């Protein structure tokens, strides 16, 4: 399989990543919630979400998609049906029931979508809970724009420590997508 390494391809990739960060990631918690409601295990959720993002990676012009949330959701739904078929858990008729049920009950309404944009602040709440050096490394890299080497020099640590901490920080951001569903539940409880 040939790899396209042209500047155009790099530009496309950067635009794709940007689009995913702005338009898709904020909805991931809602999508995961739906999957859990449908009875998917946490492992199944992780698999399905990764496969869904893999489908997005193939999009030639993502910014043309009007309702990114609905599009992502649809990908996940179809992947889930495929997964159930693969696992031979349900008979064909039941699969049709699932699809019929889904159409009525799980469309992401505008109100829910607005709510989901707040999930991005969960990212930052999680970062605030990181060990201080880890948070500082993320801050120096992403806000001050220092390179890993500059950060290592500035903090007086090795570059591998800087890299490890940055990895931890990134893992936290991804974890925030999973935790956000749990957080939402807790908040609902508190509101009562």
């Amino acid at each position, binding site marked *: *399989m040939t*790899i396209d*390494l042209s500047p155009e391809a*790099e530009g496309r*990739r950067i635009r*794709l*990543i*940007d689009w*995913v*960060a*702005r338009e*898709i*990631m904020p909805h991931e918690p809602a999508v995961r919630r739906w999957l859990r409601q449908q009875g998917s295990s946490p*492992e199944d959720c*992780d*698999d399905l*979400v*990764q*496969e*869904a*993002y*893999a*489908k*997005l*990676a193939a999009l030639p012009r993502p910014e043309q998609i009007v309702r990114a949330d609905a599009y992502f959701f649809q990908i996940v739904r179809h992947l889930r049906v495929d997964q159930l078929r693969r696992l031979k858990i349900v008979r064909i008729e039941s699969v049709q029931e699932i699809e019929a049920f889904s159409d009525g009950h799980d469309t992401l309404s505008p109100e829910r979508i607005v709510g989901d944009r*707040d999930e*991005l*602040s969960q*990212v*930052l*709440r999680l*970062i*605030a809970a990181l060990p*201080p050096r880890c*948070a*500082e490394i*993320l*801050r120096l*890299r*992403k*806000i*001050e*724009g*220092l390179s*890993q080497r500059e950060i290592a020099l*500035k903090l007086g640590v090795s570059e591998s420590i800087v*890299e490890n901490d*940055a*990895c931890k*920080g*990134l*893992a936290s*951001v*991804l974890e925030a*997508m999973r935790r956000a569903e749990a957080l939402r539940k807790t908040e609902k409880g508190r509101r009562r």
Partner: protein
Amino acid sequence: MTTRQTASDIEAEAILWVMRLDREGRTPALSAAIQAWAEGDARRAGALLQAEAAWRSLELSAKRQTQTPTEIQAPRSPSRGPERTAGATSRRTLLLAGAGAALAASGAGVYLAFLRPETHQTATGQIATVTLPDASVMTLNTASRVRVSYTRARRTVWIDEGEAWFQVAHAVERPFVVMSGLAQVQAVGTAFSVRRLEAETEVMVSEGKVRVSMQNDVARSILLAKGDSVIVTTDGRFVAALGQPGDVERRLAWRSGRLEFAGETVAEAVAEFNRYSQTSIVVRDKDLAGQRLYGAFRLDDPAAFARTAAISLGVSAVVGEDRIFIGAG
């Protein structure tokens, strides 16, 4: 039969790739290695996209916070004006404002401040305005360094060096507190300045009321109103600065790039000017140093100040390579 890899193992691998991309850039070799890895499992390309997007989302959240200062940089004067010192902080101070509207309401901004207190710093001769996450405004004077930390319950600024003037957005449930030396200055919806000289702190109030307390004994405090000023000494006393009406606004003229004197001694005026420039002014004559000075001067032009002052005092001024002499024989 090969066990299928878990999604979380794939994610860990994807994170390592993102860090390598971050460090090395999208080189052909790295792209090829990633491609080969991705072909091993349908989920891998997805995990990589997720990780790259999450890394990107950190920047997007940070930019939403916009702590971008406007620069009122003193323009270079004909004779060696203020020098610009480069450094990590000039990256922040070089950004233009105009993003004021984008500020503020974003919850992301508040949480980002949780990361660490944000440090703001000005070089000698530099004056910078910073908009804080709640739309309060902080103007930093020459050679100043402050740290800002906003939490849900409190807005705190530490003055490590120099002077700042604050215009505080009204928020009763979240007090605005400035810590400097031994003093703690609390405001609700006001405008005031705090200047730190070693461990002494001077507070001047432009609008509203502030309460100045001892950090180690907050019961000892005084309430200042518009036009009031106080110095908190190193031995923990409040010394009310005697002054004329209009003194506070006059002493805050630096915000507009001017220094205004109304009876300060030449020595005091020169000391003020020297804060703003690497070119120091030296008063040769002891009697001269004690004379009183009146007038407004651009703070970015020490040579003009020296010449004007010299004329009014009946002496001469000599502008040298890196020093200016008043009262040169």
